[in-house]
């Protein structure tokens, strides 16, 4: 248990230190959302209607941006070898790494969403609802990404392969995340149904992700 805690503290520290990339995702999110009104035009009603979708797409791309480093950094400097040799169960190790990753890259996106919603003509309450759906959905993006990160490390291919592997898996999360947001904003469909599915997707990825990633890493030892 001390080993797992030490790993969590180390990953959080590395992420918040200079060059750790914790804030890069938020900046990318900001840029994507800021660009949208320029592309779509100053139609406030249209922006308000597609605002949740833009926030969700921005968050999805921003979380993808940092996934590359989730396991590759430890692979490149040899840390992964020692982690594989350790007594801590590999499933738990990758789970903790994903949790640290979400805390430093996913959570800032959730917190930034209501603020960025103002740029898309979403009022504070609506922005809050989108943030709520992101809070429920972004862990799924991280844990699905964990599988891709493990495969990319195992196959010794970096970044682009990861995006191609992970993006198709995130389609259901995107659909139900945006559906829940829209249901709360424009109605008339109930908010509860898509939001429950979103939470279910997150819980499923929370269970599947670490086991699949650990299996991929173990297989890589052959």
């Amino acid at each position, binding site marked *: 248990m001390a080993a797992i805690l030490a790993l969590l503290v180390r990953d959080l*520290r590395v992420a918040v230190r*200079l060059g750790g990339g914790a804030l890069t995702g938020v900046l990318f999110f900001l840029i994507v959302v800021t660009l949208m009104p320029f592309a779509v035009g100053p139609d406030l009603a249209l922006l308000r209607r597609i605002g949740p979708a833009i926030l969700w797409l921005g968050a999805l791309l921003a979380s993808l941006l940092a996934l590359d480093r989730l396991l590759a950094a430890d692979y490149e400097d040899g840390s992964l*070898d020692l982690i594989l040799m*350790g007594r801590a169960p590999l499933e738990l190790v990758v789970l903790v790494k994903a949790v640290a990753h979400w805390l430093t890259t996913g959570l800032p996106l959730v917190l930034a969403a209501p603020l960025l919603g103002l740029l898309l003509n979403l009022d504070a309450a609506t922005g809050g609802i989108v943030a709520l759906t992101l809070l429920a959905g972004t862990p799924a993006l991280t844990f699905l990404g964990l599988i891709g990160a493990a495969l990319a490390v195992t196959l010794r291919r970096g970044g682009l392969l990861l995006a191609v592997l992970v993006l198709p898996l995130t389609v259901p999360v995107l659909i139900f995340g945006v559906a829940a947001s829209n249901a709360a904003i424009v109605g008339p469909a109930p908010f509860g149904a898509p939001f429950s599915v979103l939470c279910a997707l997150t819980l499923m990825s929370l269970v599947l992700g670490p086991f699949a990633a650990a299996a991929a890493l173990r297989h890589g030892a052959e």
Partner: protein
Amino acid sequence: MRLIGAELRCVRGGREIFAGLDFELRAGEGLLVTGPNGAGKSSLLRLVAGLLRPASGRVALEGAGPDRATPELAHYLGHLDPLKPSLTVAENLGFWTAFLGGGTGGTAHALATAGLAELKALPAAYLSAGQRRRLSIARLLAVKRPLWLLDEPTSTLDVAGQASFAALMRAHLADGGLILAATHVPLGLDGARELCLGPPSTPLEGRGGG
């Protein structure tokens, strides 16, 4: 305690690296793995560390207790130094000590022994190659484990560093430890046996030669 490799066969990328390899290492003994480039020295160490799976044969550390796997009793000092550049020297060592299950008391002493006591607050990004290696060596001292797997351990160390590392290895052996080291240069381990792998080396061909 003894380390046994029996009928080991290693295949990587569809190519057989070595086959039918037997060795035995008793407590207090060092075994130097030598051989030309590509003979499988590093692969053998990674097999013992559990980072590669043998195509056939087995590796076992006997007399270690029933519920401890070989990798958990071994230190692996590979080509890479597993350090995070943004963390300080002390934080890097502190993490590995905690992760590998050592007490926290040994880190200051380990840093001093490795000659890094004055640099402990420096981010690891500013360390030289030799200092990074010293920090990795400090890990071996901070966490007690019986089997040391060393892959070219002294390649970046200066002369004084090589001498003090040789002394550390002798102390480890005197303490009943085991050392399996892949190397091209003498490590200063008197009485260590040698395990020579692979075919005789093909010399690098000069221009116009042959």
